[in-house]
């Protein structure tokens, strides 16, 4: 009977039961989703940690010129000063792998890579050099190929393209044996035809070998006699070619998976596997090679690869005369895909535990760090590193993913707490209502002698059944939605956090896909459901006890008695009088409305001012940020030795929103002397080098390529040399930086290093002469340039660069002085100056005097390439637009090749991070703002309605006494309006304290005010519209 009656009490109040059941189901679902999302996001964060690896690579920015692989004294000194142990022992470092890269070769591995530097070079022993006839080509028989990229059998006929008499001044003896140095530019052809050329190598030069003294063709006794000479130069040259063309890069790593090319997915195993950390730690002799190496030499997993290494254990590059006699036998455990940049690499285990890089080019090493600690790690190591360092972070997209998950986790925690509080409130309210409404029933049951336990059961059964059904429905709904909620939240937050990393110096490499796996736990759902049900039942028990013991009933019976006034009021009259009387005597009611109004106003104003502060912060960031961009190597590393076609450079410089463009052209120069002193007296200049033959020219060109540069720039202080140091220059009287940078010169001015001035005895005002390679018309050997020294600077680079201003037409064909030429040339556009020059109508003899210095320089630089280019984006607001333009035009970004193989980098990482932080917060608030305003409005509408609803008895009384409707409206409306104004006053005081009176002018802060007033007005009108009879008849 108890059970039956309890259930009846639920079923016969369907609206209340269903409403509460719905409410409980909703808060249960809400709570479950909050907790589930929290737990899931923590689990996903753990997965994320395991799924990503963050590496930091450190590279030294060396000023090596054309001697790729050479290391200057200053570079070695800088690196010697680095505390690598401190880097390795940094708390965020999981593994520090110092660079260990050395050149090696492999037995029986001949890299038939026709793109190698010396792929055309060959060293032959030949005999029988003769001609068929006096005007036919020379030919001979091959005795032995000391070196050639292709195998040639002895006895093979070799055609020689040279004219011996003209070029060498002798006719070879057909019976003699010669060793020749030659170029075989048709190595893929069936025939063998070579051109005898001189040998030049900066490696040989640096080893003290004077390449100019090596005969291109040398008579020898025999091949055997040549081989008998251990130090024979031709054997060394052959060895040199073999080593350079067949070189492999032996890369040693402890954790090969973390190495950049593997971490970034450039290389992946196609067969076999990568060697393990255990194998590396134990020094196992294993290796991983490229597919191209494996295919070319028929190597498979399990085969042995014998590598030859330099005799000098610490050598990175081949040293002249190196016998490469050290050997290592490595078992191939894996083969990786071919990649242009890494196909010569052989990866093997390390041989040293040192934190210092032993063998390195410019990469110093890389650290595998704990995910999410990049900023911390960089702050710690930057003081340990020299300025000339390029650091790249690759996190595979961890930060973006983890940030999104952390936002979700934090939001889920907040929502869970709120949901829990709301759940407790709803369940308390539910329990109270269900037991309180049953108090009459309880009284009757007790009157009929029902035991306390029975009344307790009566109260609990119905409420528990309701809550059980509701909780079950809530959990079911929650479990059905949980996965979608998490997926949607992750996508939503990820989208909000997307930062445009195109062309950014903050580009962190590839983004590994992260597909969070969410497994719904039925046990977890059950636990949450049971917990909520237990809370519901506990609360029902609590209130049931109070009801049974009568405490609730007596609490309701208490009547609050107000303190009466000393005398009845006669102040004011009419509707205003009663409005004021009710406000004065309203007690809590008179405080509630102003408080709500003031709170709502302050709340809305806080939202607005927070949003405004975000906008202001954004504007301030825009105003205070100048973004710098530059052209770089394809990996994003800054370089002043780029090869940027003028057409591409103009595309970049003419883009909208790009300003402060600084660029340089470089020309290697040879110094000839002082043409004229400052006082006008004649100086002394060396003659221009005149090579006797093309071979000498070639050597001269090679030598010139290793010389310092003339750097043409529109602003010397922005030149790459001064990137890591300050620019200090002294100018002679009448000259300053501005005048020096001006392009409108007649005599080319220059500034030289003070060191150079001292070395060469140059004084300011002297005119010096240098020679450069002919980029003017292409058939002169060299061209001389006279320039007046107008100042000196403190040298930073490793060589004596000379700085000159640009000509008028550099990257600006419109202003080119070539346009002054009498004949119009339609093709005087970038890259066509040479054609214009050669088409210039001239006398039978062509002379440089036909052109001004400006014109000559315009043409020379137009045929060269821009070496470095930097720019600024003054208005960060247009950053997205600039990136769109760069992408449209085809420029590449760091490690992201596009149509134009010119990499543009914009230093926007820091800016993006700050902007992203502001934008995320403002976006969240922008989304919440209208919702919160609506909630405030709803609050106003509801409280206004309730305020009048609670006065309906007064309205009934007034109607009963015949009070006019307008008077009823006026009395109540004036009362409520005055309460609202008190709230506005209170808010004004608060705004004044906060120094934010301007908020009073914002319409949105009056949302509550307006909605409350509107609701009051409508409610009064609704009450007035009813019949007086129905109002008076209304039951409570």
């Amino acid at each position, binding site marked *: 009977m108890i059970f039956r009656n309890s259930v009846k009490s639920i079923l016969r109040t369907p609206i209340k039961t269903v409403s509460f059941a719905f409410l409980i189901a909703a808060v249960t679902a809400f709570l479950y989703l909050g907790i589930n999302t929290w737990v899931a996001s923590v689990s996903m964060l753990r997965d994320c940690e395991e799924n990503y690896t963050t590496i930091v690579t450190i590279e030294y920015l060396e000023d090596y010129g054309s001697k790729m692989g050479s290391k200057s004294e200053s570079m070695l000194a800088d690196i010697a000063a680095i505390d690598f142990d401190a880097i390795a022992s940094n708390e965020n470092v999981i593994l520090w792998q110092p660079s260990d890269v050395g050149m090696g070769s492999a037995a029986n591995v001949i890299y038939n890579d026709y793109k190698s530097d010396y792929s055309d070079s060959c060293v032959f022993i030949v005999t029988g050099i003769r001609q068929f006839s006096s005007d036919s080509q020379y030919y001979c028989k091959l005795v032995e190929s000391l070196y050639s990229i292709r195998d040639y059998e002895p006895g093979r006929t070799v055609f020689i393209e040279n004219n011996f008499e003209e070029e060498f001044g002798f006719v070879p003896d057909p019976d003699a044996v010669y060793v020749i140095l030659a170029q075989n530019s048709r190595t893929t052809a069936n025939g063998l035809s070579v051109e005898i050329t001189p040998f030049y190598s900066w490696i040989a030069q640096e080893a003290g070998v004077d390449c100019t003294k090596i005969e291109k063709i040398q008579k020898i006794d025999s091949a055997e006699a040549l081989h008998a000479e251990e130090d024979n130069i031709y054997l060394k040259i052959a060895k040199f070619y073999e080593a350079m063309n067949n070189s492999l890069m032996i890369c040693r790593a402890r954790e090969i998976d973390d190495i950049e090319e593997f971490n970034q997915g450039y290389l992946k195993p196609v067969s076999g596997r990568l060697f393990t950390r255990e194998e590396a730690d134990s020094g196992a002799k294993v290796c991983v090679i490229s597919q191209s190496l494996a295919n070319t030499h028929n190597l498979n997993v399990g085969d042995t690869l014998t590598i030859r290494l330099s005799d000098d254990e610490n050598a990175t590059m081949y040293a002249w005369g190196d016998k490469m006699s050290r050997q290592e036998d490595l078992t191939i455990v894996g083969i990786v895909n071919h990649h242009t940049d890494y196909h010569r690499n052989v990866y093997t285990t390390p041989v040293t535990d040192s934190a210092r890089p032993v063998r390195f080019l410019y990469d110093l090493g890389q650290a595998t760090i704990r995910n999410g600690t990049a900023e911390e790690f960089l702050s710690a190591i930057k003081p340990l590193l020299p300025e000339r360092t390029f650091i790249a972070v690759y996190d595979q997209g961890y930060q973006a993913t983890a940030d999104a998950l952390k936002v979700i986790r934090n939001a889920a925690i907040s929502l869970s707490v709120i949901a829990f509080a709301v759940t407790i409130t709803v369940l308390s309210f539910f329990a109270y209502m269900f037991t309180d409404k049953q108090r009459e029933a309880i009284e009757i049951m007790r009157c009929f002698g029902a035991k306390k336990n029975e009344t307790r059961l009566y109260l609990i059964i119905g409420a528990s059944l309701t809550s059980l059904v509701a909780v079950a429905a809530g959990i079911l709904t929650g479990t059905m939605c949980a996965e979608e909620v998490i997926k949607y939240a992750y996508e939503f937050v990820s989208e909000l956090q997307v930062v445009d990393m195109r062309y950014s110096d903050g580009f962190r490499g590839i983004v590994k896909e992260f597909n969070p796996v969410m497994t719904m736990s039925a046990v977890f759902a059950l636990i949450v459901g049971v917990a909520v049900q237990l809370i519901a039942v506990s609360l029902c028990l609590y209130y049931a006890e109070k009801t049974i013991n009568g405490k609730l009933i007596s609490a309701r019976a208490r*009547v609050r*008695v*107000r303190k*009466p*006034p*000393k*005398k*009845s*009021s*006669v*102040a*004011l*009259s*009419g509707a205003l*009088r009663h409005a004021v*009387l*009710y406000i004065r*005597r*309203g007690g809590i009611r008179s405080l509630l409305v102003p408080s709500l109004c003031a709170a709502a106003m302050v709340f809305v104003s806080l939202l607005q001012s927070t949003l405004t502060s975000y906008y202001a912060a954004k504007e301030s960031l825009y105003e205070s940020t100048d973004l710098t961009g530059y052209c770089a190597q394809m990996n994003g590393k800054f370089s002043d030795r780029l090869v940027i076609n003028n057409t591409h450079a103009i595309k970049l410089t003419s883009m909208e929103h790009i300003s402060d463009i600084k660029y340089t052209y470089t020309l290697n120069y040879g110094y000839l002397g002082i043409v004229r002193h400052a006082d006008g007296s004649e100086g002394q200049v060396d003659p221009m080098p005149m090579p006797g033959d093309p071979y000498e020219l070639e050597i001269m060109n090679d030598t010139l390529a290793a010389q310092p540069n003339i750097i043409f720039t529109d602003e010397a202080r922005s030149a790459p040399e001064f990137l890591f140091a300050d620019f200090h220059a002294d100018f002679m009287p009448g000259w300053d930086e501005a005048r020096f940078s001006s392009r409108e010169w007649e005599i080319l001015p220059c500034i030289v290093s003070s060191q150079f001035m001292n070395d060469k005895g140059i004084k300011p005002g002297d005119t010096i002469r240098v020679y450069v390679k002919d980029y003017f018309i292409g058939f002169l050997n060299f061209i001389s340039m006279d320039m007046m020294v107008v100042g000196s600077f403190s040298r930073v680079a490793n060589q004596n660069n000379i700085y000159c201003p640009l000509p008028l037409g550099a990257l600006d064909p419109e202003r080119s002085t070539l346009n002054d030429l009498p004949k119009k040339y339609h093709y005087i556009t970038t890259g066509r100056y040479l054609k214009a020059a050669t088409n210039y109508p001239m006398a039978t003899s062509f002379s440089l005097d036909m052109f001004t210095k400006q014109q000559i320089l315009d043409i020379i630089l137009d045929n060269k390439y821009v070496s470095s280019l930097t720019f600024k984006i003054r208005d960060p607001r247009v950053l997205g637009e600039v990136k769109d333009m760069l992408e449209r035009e085809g420029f590449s970004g760091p490690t992201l090749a596009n149509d134009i193989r010119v990499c543009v980098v914009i230093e926007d990482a820091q800016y993006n991070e700050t902007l992203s932080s502001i934008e995320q917060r403002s976006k969240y608030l922008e989304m919440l703002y209208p919702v919160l305003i609506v909630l405030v409005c709803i609050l106003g509408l509801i409280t206004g309605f309730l305020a009048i609803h609670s006065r309906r*008895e*007064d309205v*009934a*009384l007034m*109607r*009963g*006494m*015949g*009070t*006019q*409707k307008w*008077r009823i409206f006026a009395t109540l409306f004036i009362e409520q309006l005055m309460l609202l104004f008190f709230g506005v006053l209170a808010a004004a005081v608060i705004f004044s304290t906060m120094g934010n009176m301007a908020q009073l002018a914002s319409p949105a802060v009056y949302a509550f005010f307006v909605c409350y007033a509107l609701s009051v007005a409508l409610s009064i009108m609704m009450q007035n519209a009813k*019949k*007086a*009879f129905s109002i*008076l008849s209304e039951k409570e």
Partner: protein
Amino acid sequence: MSILTLNSVRYSYSSKYHTVEALKDVNCEFEQGLIYAIVGKSGSGKSTMLSLMAGLDVPDKGDVLFRGVSTRTMDLDSYRRNDVAIIYQNFRLFPLLTAVENVMYPMELHGIRPREAKKRAEEYIRSVELNDNVFNRFPSMLSGGEQQRVAIARALAMDTSLMLADEPTGNLDSQTARNIIELLARLAHERNYCIIVVTHDMELLDMMDVTYQMKDGILVKA
């Protein structure tokens, strides 16, 4: 001439589940200077009839005539303000106004200034045999009898000829009830009011001048 006449008045209540015909063809007249009682069982239609007489609604059929003018044609608010005063069973005093302020209210409706209204209110309260110490009390601080007297004083303050009382003694003890009815009877006789009292208390009928009985929606003279 009768001050109030009911001619063939019919009135019914409709709800979602059923319709109740509260008044079926009620005919009666009321005159000034008399106190009338309308008795009947609970649910017989007494209070409904009183409400129609008070101008709180108009009958479905028939007419309620005040001084020959049908309530259908008049401004009911004006009628309730100027011509009829109602006394309720549960007093219906403004809870946040003192006894004097409650009595002042109808006078203020007529444009009397507060000071003057206060003086008169105090007189009215004294006239219903209440002490000065009730003047500044809120209704919640008064006993049932005191509240009802204040309600009568308020009705007097309306200065009308017709006074309707719906179970004015319903919440009072028997002695207080008799005192209230005596007061009303005196007002009717001495001030020429027409006072109509709806009651189910038979013990008060001996103080009434005329008694009507409501039975099944029909009014008959008892």
